[in-house]
């Protein structure tokens, strides 16, 4: 831990590089972070409120808050999973604490998410949706989501070094999870029989802690918050324990 703190300037540089790499080959640069979710939302808006006719008040805000969360969540997990693989040659030659790589990718994801909140708030203003003081709770929501993603990244990044098929397995799982999480559909449309599946999905509680202040204008209820904190704590502990146990073997596979 103290060794990790000594490398905090390195984390900063890696975050900056991650952001730079992500936007280098795009004509619109950082604007893309803001435009991409808006375009997705526009498509979903047409599909779900005009074609399928979900009965959701201000569906655009519901969908956009879900998309921002999901983009952050899935990108953070996938890039942090790949972070050790892409730095494998480095990690096998320099005595650098390996956790800096997954940590830096998750922080870069948080920066992206914060930038993407700008169009979200623009949409709130334009659509006349109430902005409640509960949005001040968002930093806590984002922190919880980031720690959850970090836990997953710490678990998956060594696995991705050890086994070549993990990356694909995670890709498929993420798609499955997207449908098991109420990102773009409301919980109400689910048939009673399948409701439990979505209820059991731990990512749903992390998403709702993020969406509650934006869409419902309320601080998440304490009972719900407690469940989310427990979920995040478990993910983080599992991630850290696995990472610590396996990280000395990582240089063998590079």
């Amino acid at each position, binding site marked *: 831990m103290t060794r990790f703190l000594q490398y905090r300037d390195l984390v900063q*540089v890696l975050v900056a590089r991650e952001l730079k790499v992500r936007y280098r080959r795009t004509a619109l640069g950082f604007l893309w972070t803001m435009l991409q979710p808006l375009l997705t939302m526009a498509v979903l808006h047409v599909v779900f409120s005009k074609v399928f006719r979900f009965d959701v008040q201000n569906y655009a805000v519901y969908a956009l808050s879900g998309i921002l969360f999901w983009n952050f969540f899935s990108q953070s997990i996938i890039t942090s999973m790949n972070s050790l693989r892409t730095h494998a040659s480095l990690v096998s030659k320099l005595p650098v604490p390996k956790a800096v790589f997954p940590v830096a990718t998750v922080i870069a994801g948080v920066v992206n998410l914060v930038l993407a909140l700008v169009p979200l708030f623009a949409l709130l203003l334009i659509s006349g949706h109430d902005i409640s003081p509960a949005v001040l709770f968002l930093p806590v929501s984002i922190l919880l989501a980031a720690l959850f993603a970090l836990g997953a990244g710490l678990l998956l990044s060594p696995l991705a070094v050890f086994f070549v098929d993990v990356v694909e397995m995670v890709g498929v799982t993420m798609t499955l999870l997207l449908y098991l999480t109420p990102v773009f559909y409301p919980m109400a449309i689910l048939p009673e029989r399948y409701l439990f599946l979505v209820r059991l999905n731990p990512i749903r509680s992390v998403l709702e802690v993020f969406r509650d202040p934006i869409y419902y204008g309320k601080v998440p209820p304490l009972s719900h918050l407690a469940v989310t904190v427990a979920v995040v704590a478990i993910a983080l502990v599992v991630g850290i324990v696995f990472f610590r146990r396996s990280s000395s073997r990582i240089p063998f596979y590079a």
Partner: protein
Amino acid sequence: MESAEQAPVLELAGVSLCYRLARHRTPSFKEYAIHWMRGALEYQQLWALRDVDLVVRPGETVGIVGRNGAGKSTLLKVLSGVLVPTTGTARRRGILAPILELGTGFDPELTGWENIFLNALLLGRRRREVEERIDEIVEFSGLGEMIHSPIRNYSTGMLARLGFAIATSWVPQVLLLDEVLSVGDTAFRERCHARLDRFRRGGAAILLVSHNAQDIEANCERALWLDAGRVAAQGPAAEVLQRYDESVHPVATTTA
């Protein structure tokens, strides 16, 4: 004899290192899980180092020789802390500067200037320390205006100069050199040697890995010969190198 009384900066005691790799050619999680459930996981055990003892004190220069695959690079990785010994203990003290293969810890898309930060931070320096030294690093590398150009445009000589300039900008207690002194032009090599001499006089220990006996003979007073992961000989460089040389080029010892 003064150096013998100083506490060692590097100390390996009975170090063995085993690469334990799954025997399957494609390391897939699916196969691993299936084999694990059957209790049929097989590992290939490869002992890259066996029972290595090495003590390095301040101011010493130790050469490590051996054929390809003898475990020289593995030994350096244990010394730098990248690999953890399977058995035995590895202890080090103070700032350790590894100078490794060309381009390790550089990003080809970033400029030389940006790479100085990236590389030095990877070596464990703080941003403030880099800011204090950056002019001196640029100066020593002799890259001039090229420092603001992406390093994918650099020649191997330029990369080597930059790498050396960064790693040696902070006086280390231990310097690990992996066959890097042979790159760069003569003028730069002379400057490297001058800097290494200054470090040595200042009490730094230097470990030099090479399969080239001349390199070691010219720079080291002590040598360690690794053969198939074991220490075949250790002691005064001339003696060790002679025995190493005899094993590489066996000569008929008939005295007729």
